[in-house]
């Protein structure tokens, strides 16, 4: 069970959360490219290659996560994108990937809701890599 030689883009505007998720992914041997803002993430997407992206929906910038997912898929539609959201409980906005339309709109392969436990994170990383 190793993610050696795999690169993961990790985007979250919560500094501590980012640190902790990075820690667990690095423990599996992955190289983590982390970004805390939409701008940082865009630069990374443009300039670096990675095998999986785990992106927070980032409600502070409303749609940052969705925009980033689109940007990644435009660059390479084969890169799996996992969207993480803390939204459902907070503002009662509900996201779902039940229908084809929703999947096309969101451009993501999987949706996780916060807080994501370390086992869950590992399971998802191993599934897509």
């Amino acid at each position, binding site marked *: 069970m190793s993610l050696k030689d795999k690169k993961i883009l990790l985007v979250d505007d*919560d500094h501590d959360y980012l640190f902790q998720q990075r820690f667990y992914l690095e423990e599996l041997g992955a190289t983590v490219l982390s970004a805390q803002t939409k701008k940082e993430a865009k630069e990374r997407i443009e300039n670096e290659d990675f095998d999986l992206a785990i992106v927070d929906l980032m409600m502070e910038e409303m749609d940052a996560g969705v925009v980033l997912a689109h940007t990644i898929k435009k660059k390479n539609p084969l890169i799996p994108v996992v969207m993480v959201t803390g939204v459902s409980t907070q503002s009662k906005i509900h996201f779902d990937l039940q229908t084809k339309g929703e999947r096309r709109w969101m451009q993501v392969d999987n949706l996780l809701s916060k807080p994501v436990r370390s086992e869950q994170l590992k399971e998802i990383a191993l599934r897509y890599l």
Partner: protein
Amino acid sequence: MMDGEELKIRVLVVEDEEAMATAIRRTLQNFSSTLESLKRQISFELSYQTTLKESLEALDHKEYDLILLDYKLPDGNGIEILNKIKDLSDPPIAIMMTAYANYETAVMATKLGAFDFLPKPFSVEELRMAIKKATNHLVLIRQARSFEEEKKKIRFNFISILSHELKAPLGAIEGYLNILERGTEKLSKDDYDKMISRSKERLLGMRKLILDLLDLTRIESGEKRRNLTTMNVTTILSDVIELLQLDADKRKIKIESASAKEISLFGDTLEIQIILTNLISNAIKYNREGGKVTVSLNDSSEKLKIAVTDTGIGIEKDDLGRLFNEFVRIKNEETVHILGSGLGLSTVKKIAHLYKGDVKVLSTVGVGSTFEVELYKDCG
């Protein structure tokens, strides 16, 4: 209820004399009143009952806004209807009509919650006046109620944001503890140090949030707990600066204060401390490394003006409007690493209002911001 929208009043007329019922119908059918003060058109939807029994049944099945009630009914009297409606959650307004008008009946009806009393025979004009008065009252009651509901909603919102803000640091600290719990052997010294210092920082943020919250509740609890004295604002300012000097030094920020003389103000010392602490600590937090904070006190016989200027990141025009709302924190590339409760400026604004003043902000992105608080002296 929206302004300008037509208001339909559901009226139940309880009257056994046919002639009287007809007269009431004619009067109300052609009477669509306008509430001048509210600019609202009123119309009436009428229902009729002739006996006590039927009236009580009607009240079980439908809601009414207004009841025109005859005192004497073939199977009892109107008092029993008053007795019933007083227990309803949203009781209609009752106008009692009777030919047997006497003092005792009037008192009893009023005690049971009748809004008005209309002695028979009455003129069309008298009936219209009574209806108009009752309608006005109804609209006012409803407005007060929707205001209450709005207040409840705001409160609920506040609490749900607050719980989120309290939960977030707990989650972060718990996350670090989970990592540390697995043993520190595999951790680098850097990571270990960072986890400890971030945990402490999040705890500090949480403590600050709780303290800000206490300030806010203290301000909102009203006049009772204010401790009004004549204070020396210049001394308070130097105390506040001394307290914040360490934070400023860490980022090589200079704090300058300019006030010509000793300034005294009649008010609550703690409130002035809160204003100065919030504005100056913001000016440090949102400043650039090596920047400057300038505090000036401008005193006149009428008011005290406090201005705090920084050389920091500035605020986007679009963000200025919501800056003074509770829990608002402007999040962007520049502020993402800065901690804050989002309560400071809303508290400053509330305090300024206690002194019949206000707070203003002038800002240029990349250059800095000036926050200006005006406090009027005759209302401390």
